[in-house]
């Protein structure tokens, strides 16, 4: 079984601060991990992914994420944050479902960046 936990349902910070959104996962094999973003009233967009190798991966819109095998985490980071980063962020784990692969999403973290 595979699972993703995003422990913070809502994060609020001021523009210019550093943001870090937490994600932990449970999976018995090597994980493929993703972050997606959903802006208000919009659909989900891909931000970045971790496959293997470097523990810090860079994505679109100035975001990066750090993979830590030691504590099964894949936290999303950006500095400085901008008010336009206000959105809901989803962490996802790709794992095997039978003979196919599928994504398991966390519940999401709603980020509010105040001007």
């Amino acid at each position: 079984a595979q699972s993703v936990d995003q422990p913070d349902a809502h994060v609020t910070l001021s523009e210019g601060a550093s943001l870090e959104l937490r994600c932990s996962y449970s999976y018995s094999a090597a994980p493929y991990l993703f972050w997606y973003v959903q802006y208000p009233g919009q659909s989900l967009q891909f931000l970045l992914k971790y496959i293997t190798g470097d523990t810090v991966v860079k994505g679109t819109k100035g975001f990066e994420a750090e993979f830590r095998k030691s504590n099964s985490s894949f936290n999303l980071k950006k500095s400085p944050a901008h008010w336009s980063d206000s959105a809901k962020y989803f962490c996802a784990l790709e794992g095997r479902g039978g003979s196919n692969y599928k994504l398991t999403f966390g519940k999401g973290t709603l980020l509010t960046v105040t001007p």
Partner: protein
Amino acid sequence: EAAVTQSPRNKVTVTGGNVTLSCRQTNSHNYMYWYRQDTGHGLRLIHYSYGAGNLQIGDVPDGYKATRTTQEDFFLLLELASPSQTSLYFCASSEWGGRYAEQFFGPGTRLTVL
């Protein structure tokens, strides 16, 4: 960039009603997915497909049928809709299944079952 469209964008039906949600992707992706998004649950996979005529069961399939008629078109069917199926439904596509492929999402269909 892949384009995924969904119709209708909004739908209201009554309990026991028959609903079909449509999804079309125009980037020749092999895999297509149906998710539902509910507060407190994130996105949950209902059904997916890796080609015309193929259907795979997702994590929350009860009460849903799906059909992939062509590589472009994937339909979600609710034959006896219930209020518990009130949700925001997303369709997505990817070039291949898993193997760290990025998924491209449609705009969503908001379904209300009264």
